[in-house]
């Protein structure tokens, strides 16, 4: 398991001293780390460590009480989710958040939402620019469907698909936006070995082929150490480790958080 060693000179996103609390519960305390352009960055930690809260801060679902996030050189303390999407941040969710009533195709088409610009007027008539645009974007979606090998479920309502495929459709929807930064919240949770391997392959391919920066949360340590360039470790809302997989693996605090130590 040789960790891949690649170098990334540019910082895409940096998190500075983020603190987030819900009432008296401190979800995140003074967290700082950065995500370099083009890398695969993992966030790991035991249950309840604040990993999902961190992602939710990055894409604007949560607004941290303290700290700031600098994305593409612009520093801000809060951002709305749809603004994050406009800035090129796409994501998937821990418990799948697909549009259950819609087909696979329509689900992925919603990911193109921001790429489509024709006004309401043309859309209402469904002619001219609106129709051309619909066709163009449909092509892009078909490419994603091919890429993720889900041609056979193109028209199926996603609510009826098996779990692994739903996760894949959700990835497709995020990819459809052609994001610069892709946030994946436990993309492999609940999958069998084969499905996990597929998902790993897709994540690596997305990173290689499109140069998409990826930030993922994952529990499967084998997977994390294999595919990520750098790993940040959270425990009880605090950062306890940050570095390349080998460093993190040998970090005592990390080992303690995972295995427990006698004090």
């Amino acid at each position, binding site marked *: 398991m040789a960790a891949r060693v690649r170098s990334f000179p540019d910082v895409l996103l940096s998190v500075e001293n983020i603190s987030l609390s819900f009432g008296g519960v401190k979800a995140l305390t003074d967290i700082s780390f950065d995500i370099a352009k083009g890398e695969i960055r993992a966030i790991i930690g035991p249950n309840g460590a604040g990993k999902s809260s961190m992602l939710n801060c990055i*894409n604007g*679902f949560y607004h941290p009480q303290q700290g700031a996030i600098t994305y593409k050189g612009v520093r801000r303390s809060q951002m*709305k*989710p*749809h603004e*994050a*999407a*406009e800035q090129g941040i*796409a*994501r998937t*969710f821990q418990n799948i*958040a*697909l*549009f*259950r*009533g*819609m087909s696979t195709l*329509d689900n992925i*088409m*919603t*990911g193109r*939402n*921001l790429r*489509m*610009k*024709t*006004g*309401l*007027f043309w*859309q*209402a008539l*469904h002619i001219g620019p*609106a129709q051309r*645009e*619909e066709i163009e974007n449909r092509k892009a979606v078909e490419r994603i469907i091919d890429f993720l090998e889900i041609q056979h479920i193109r028209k199926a*309502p996603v*609510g*009826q698909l098996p*779990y692994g495929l739903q996760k894949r459709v959700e990835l497709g*929807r*995020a990819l*459809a*936006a052609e994001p610069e930064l892709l946030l994946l919240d436990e993309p492999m949770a609940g999958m069998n070995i084969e499905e996990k391997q597929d998902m790993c392959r897709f994540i690596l391919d997305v990173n290689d082929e499109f140069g998409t920066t990826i930030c993922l949360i994952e529990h499967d340590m084998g997977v994390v150490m294999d595919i990520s360039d750098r790993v940040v470790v959270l425990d009880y809302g605090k950062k306890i480790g940050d570095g390349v997989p080998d460093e993190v693996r040998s970090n005592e605090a990390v080992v303690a958080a995972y295995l427990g130590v006698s004090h």
Partner: protein
Amino acid sequence: MLGAFLETLIGGLLTGVLYSLVALGFVLIFKASGVFNFAQGAMVLFAALTIARLSGEIDNKEVHLANFVVAAAILGVAVALIGWYAWREYVARGAGPDERRKMQMLAAVGALVGGIAAYSYGKGAWPIWLAIAATAAIMGLLAYAIERLVLRHLVNQEGIILFMATLGIANFLDGFGQTLWGSDIYKINLGLPKDPLFLFENVFPGGLLVDPGELVAAGIAAGLVVVLAIFFQKTRVGRALRAVADDHAAAQSVGIPLNTIWLIVWTVSGLVALAAGLIWGAKLGVQFSISLIALKALPVLILGGFTSVPGAIVGGLIIGAGEKLSEVFLAPVLVKAFDLAGGGIENWFAYMLALVFLLFRPQGLFGERIIERV
């Protein structure tokens, strides 16, 4: 006999189209936010009242100047907001932060124009087209107010909480409409032809009697229904609406702004309420009972499915035709067989039909089947 049957059927279908229109208002909001909008009936009444009062002649002693000043101001602001939205949508997509100042200026100009309009038309009797346009603007503004004051604070809440909120909106609108416009019975004169038409006189003795006013109304309603159906099924905004209905968080994550979508939906359903209020008001007169039309839409929704635009259309037609046919043909039979005092089937037949449907297809004719993986 066949002639009488067809005549009843046609009359029923024409009424049915109007039911579809009301039901459609419900479906739109339900699809886009998963909320059964209890205020739809109140919106129909409010729209009808507004049109009636703006277009109707008003006795001198009845003039409440304040009403018209308020209406005109609302109108002005609404015109300005719509103008601003159009400007942003078509001319300067994604323009900078000075948008807001321009909007404020537009609103000021709009209010001024509205004030002048109010002064010159202070006694009502606006031409019908102007009254309709003004009401459309007011419905848009109402949608904005509902989004801003109520819905925005309830993002990611349970459906039942949003439902309770619409109950509140319904009560408020019922009262507010009467505060603003009074509670008398008003007329809307659309200038529709009144003389009955006789079709196929050479086929059936005496021909088929059809009310041309209903024909025109049904035509308008049908056109509206078709446009809306295409809009919601085939366009980007339509897809965004369905996305919002399914999952708020996921919709936001792909860059769909929840607030804008809700504004669009409520505006559209406000316009649908306007059309329904206009047609029903012209037919029955504008009175409080119009808001109960909402209840007529319930069996239509159960029949067609809460989430289906085609369902609302077909359901409306079935209920409309079923009602009239049962009244004319089933009632006499029942009255005779059981020695009843009278018919009145029209009033409960729709609900019976809906109940039977519920037993066999709980999701309605075209509704989405609910499938849960366990």
